[in-house]
């Protein structure tokens, strides 16, 4: 799986590859952003988004008419927050319950696919917003 980010003007920011064995390759990162911490943060964001975890030990909780699927990591937890019927993934949250580190929102579902995606980091200003492009 390849993930490439460009802006509307064709300016490329990064190009990552996630292989099926859990491997990660950075094909490109623009010079100004090419820092270990930035790559690590983005890698983690997309690993959460691509559901690259072992869900066999996940626990399921319910709160406020939403379903929380909790995956324990070495540092903190990842919560996949879905509608009660589990058809729509509303939000992915990383951190502890009291101190979320990253929120990933999926919004405006159309035919089961979200139209917009927002990645919001709580500890520093580094947010990503993307929209589905129609052909």
């Amino acid at each position: 799986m390849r993930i490439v980010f460009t802006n509307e003007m064709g300016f490329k920011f990064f190009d990552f590859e996630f292989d099926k064995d859990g491997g990660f390759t950075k094909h490109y990162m623009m010079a100004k952003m090419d820092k270990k911490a930035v790559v690590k943060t983005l890698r983690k964001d997309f690993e959460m988004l691509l559901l690259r975890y072992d869900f066999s030990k996940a626990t399921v909780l319910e709160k406020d008419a939403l379903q929380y699927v909790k995956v324990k990591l070495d540092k903190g937890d990842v919560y996949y927050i879905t509608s009660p019927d589990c058809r729509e993934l509303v939000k992915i949250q990383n951190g502890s319950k009291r101190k979320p580190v990253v929120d990933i929102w999926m919004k405006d579902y159309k035919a089961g696919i979200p139209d917009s995606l927002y990645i919001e980091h709580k500890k520093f200003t580094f947010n990503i917003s993307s929209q589905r492009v129609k052909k």
Partner: protein
Amino acid sequence: MRKWIWIIACLATTAVRAQSPGFKPAANLEQFKQQFAKTAQQTKSIKSDFVQEKNLSMLSEKITSKGKFWFKKEDKVKMEYQTPSYYLVIINGKDIKTKDSQKENRISAKSSKVFQQVSRITADCVQGNVLNNADFSTKVFENAQFYQLEMTPVAKGIKDYFKKIVLWVDKKDYAVTKLQMQEQSGDDTVMSFVNKETNVNIPDEVFAVK
């Protein structure tokens, strides 16, 4: 980082395109320079449609965007992307405004050296003023229909972003009809100008950033 287009795709490969065939070094460089500079000087404004094609080495198909373009001397540029998604960028001197379907941003180019450089390159390219831009070393080629300007960045900041910028200048009217921005990674963006009108009246309000 505000509005981004998100592209996920399985690995695909395409051949990296080589330099345009059929071009040879320009025979009469001085004549070209003089005529090109004269046209640039006479160009007060440009209104045009544009087609932008993004070539990513990992994707077999191009990403095509279309929109409208305005330029007014000395330093006003407006680009409105209409498909596949709305995006507006206005460069008015040292001020930049961007807007997508959800958010509006105002940036002072003073605070961003890269934006300053990019806005200068854009204005210089469309106006045909690139031969005076010290940030690039430029070679000029030609075929029967076009002059081709191959601009290699020498300034440090721009070098990080572009390997080369190539301009196609129509021999008929010395107007820039196409530009290609080649990235260090091998990907590129080609922008073609169609339905171009020069020296039409464009009110300053078109470039309002406040």
